[in-house]
C-alpha cells in the first residue's frame, strides 16, 4: 500500500512537472520574443538618428553644387499620381535642363502627354507648350532660386529639378532632417555613388551622391508620407559640367504659328498688346 502511494505520488509529481514545463515553455519563448523586439526597437531608434557622415555628405554636395557656374542635366523622372481611391499611377518624364548661374535657365520637359519648354533670361519667364502651341510670358525675378519660388507660389508651377538650386543655399531644408542613414556604395548608370536615406517631416527620401571629387546627385527617390498611398517621385540624373550654349538658348522666339495665352490668375488685359 505504501509502495502504491509512493508510485502515485511520483506519477503525480511527474504530471505536475510536465504541466509546469508546458506552462513555462511559452513564457520562455515570449520572453525571448520581447527581448529581440526590444533589440529591434533599439536598432530602429539608431536608424532614425542622424548619421553625421550622411548629413556631411549632403552638405558637401550642396556646397559643391553652389560652385557650379554652368551645367546641363538630363534626367529621367517618375512621379506617382494618387487616384481618389488610393491607386497609384506613375508618369515618366524626360527633363533636359541648362542653367547658367544665377539667372539663365532653359528646361525642356518631355513626356507622353506634354512637351514643354521653360525659358528664363534673367528678365522674363516663358512657358511654351509645344503640342498645343501656346505660350505665356511673365516678368521674372533676378535669380533661378527666386524664380522657382515665384513660379510655385504665384503660378502653381514647380520648376523641374528645383532642388539643384536650393541645396547648399539658404533655401535648403537640411535643418529639417530628422533621420540620416549611410546605406553604402551603389552604382547609378555606371557611376559609383554612396547611397543615403533621410527623413524629414512628411517625406522619406534617398539620394545617390557621386563618390570622389565631384559629389553630384545622381539619383533621387522621394516617398511622400502625407498620403497613406505613399506616392513616389524619382529622378536619375546625367551631368554635363561643360555645356555649349549661347545667350539665345535662354530666350524664347515664338514660332510663327504659336499663340500667346495667359497663366491662370493673370488678366488677359494685363498681358495683351503684342
Amino acid at each position, binding site marked *: 500500500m505504501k509502495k502504491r502511494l509512493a508510485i502515485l505520488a511520483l506519477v503525480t509529481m511527474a504530471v505536475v512537472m510536465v504541466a509546469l514545463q508546458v506552462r513555462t515553455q511559452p513564457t520562455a519563448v515570449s520572453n525571448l520574443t520581447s527581448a529581440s523586439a526590444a533589440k529591434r526597437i533599439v536598432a530602429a531608434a539608431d536608424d532614425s538618428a542622424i548619421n553625421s557622415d550622411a548629413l556631411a555628405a549632403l552638405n558637401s554636395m550642396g556646397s559643391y553644387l553652389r560652385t557650379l557656374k554652368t551645367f546641363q542635366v538630363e534626367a529621367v523622372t517618375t512621379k506617382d499620381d494618387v*487616384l481618389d481611391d488610393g491607386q497609384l499611377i506613375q508618369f515618366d518624364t524626360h527633363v533636359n535642363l541648362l542653367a547658367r548661374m544665377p539667372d539663365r535657365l532653359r528646361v525642356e520637359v518631355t513626356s507622353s502627354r506634354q512637351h514643354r519648354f521653360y525659358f528664363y533670361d534673367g528678365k522674363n519667364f516663358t512657358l511654351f507648350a509645344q503640342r498645343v502651341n501656346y505660350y505665356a510670358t511673365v516678368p521674372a525675378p533676378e535669380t533661378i532660386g527666386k524664380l522657382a519660388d515665384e513660379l510655385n507660389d504665384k*503660378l502653381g508651377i514647380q520648376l523641374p529639378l528645383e532642388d539643384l538650386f536650393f541645396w547648399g543655399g539658404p533655401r535648403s531644408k537640411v535643418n529639417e532632417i530628422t533621420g540620416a542613414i549611410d546605406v553604402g556604395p551603389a552604382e547609378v548608370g555606371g557611376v559609383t555613388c554612396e547611397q543615403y536615406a533621410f527623413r524629414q517631416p512628411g517625406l522619406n527620401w534617398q539620394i545617390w551622391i557621386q563618390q570622389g571629387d565631384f559629389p553630384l546627385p545622381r539619383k533621387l527617390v522621394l516617398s*511622400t508620407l502625407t498620403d497613406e498611398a505613399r506616392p513616389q517621385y524619382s529622378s536619375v540624373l546625367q551631368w554635363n559640367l561643360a555645356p555649349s*550654349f549661347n545667350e539665345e538658348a535662354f530666350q524664347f522666339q515664338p514660332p510663327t504659328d504659336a499663340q500667346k495665352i495667359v497663366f491662370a490668375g493673370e488678366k488677359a488685359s494685363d498681358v495683351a*498688346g503684342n
Partner: protein
Amino acid sequence: MNRTIQKSLVALSVLLLPFSTILNAGPGGGGNHSSRGSATSSVNRGNTSNTNRNNNTNVNRNTNTNVNSNKNVNVNANKNVNVNVNVDNNRGGYYGGGYNNGCCYHQSVGGAVATAAAVTATTMVTAAVVGSMVNTLPPSCTSVIVNGIAYQQCGSTWYQPQFSGGNTNYVVINAPR
C-alpha cells in the same frame, strides 16, 4: 547653337503637329479619373501637398442628345410625306388600303409636325457659365486672336486658354471684343 535649337524647335513642332490634333480631339475611351494628389518632387520645397489642378485625363465629350432625337423625328416626318406622295399617285389597292384609313394618315402627319416643333423648341443651346473651367474644348471651335492673346470661340461661347499649374485648360469668359 541657337540656330540648331531653333531649327530643331521648328522641326519638332512640325513633327508634333499631328499629335496636337489628336490631343485636341481627346483620347477615346476610358473614364474620368480624378486624383487626390501626387508625389512631392522636391525635398527643399517643404511639405506641400501637390494637389493636381487638372487631373482628368480622359474627358468624356458630351454629344448633344437633343439634336439626335430631333433627327429621329425628322425621319418620321419624311416617311409620312412619302406616303403622301404615294397616295397622290393613287397606286393600286395596297396603298388604297392605307388611304382608306385616312384618319390615321392625317393624324400622323399632324402629330409628326407637332412633335418636331416641340423638339425644336427644346434644342435651345444652354450657354456655358462664365468662369467655369474645362480641360477639353467642345468640337468646332475657332481660334481668335484679340490684342495678341489667343481665345477659342465655340459657337456663342468664348474660352480663354490658360496655363493652370502644369496643365492647359480653358475658362469660359465673356466675349473679349
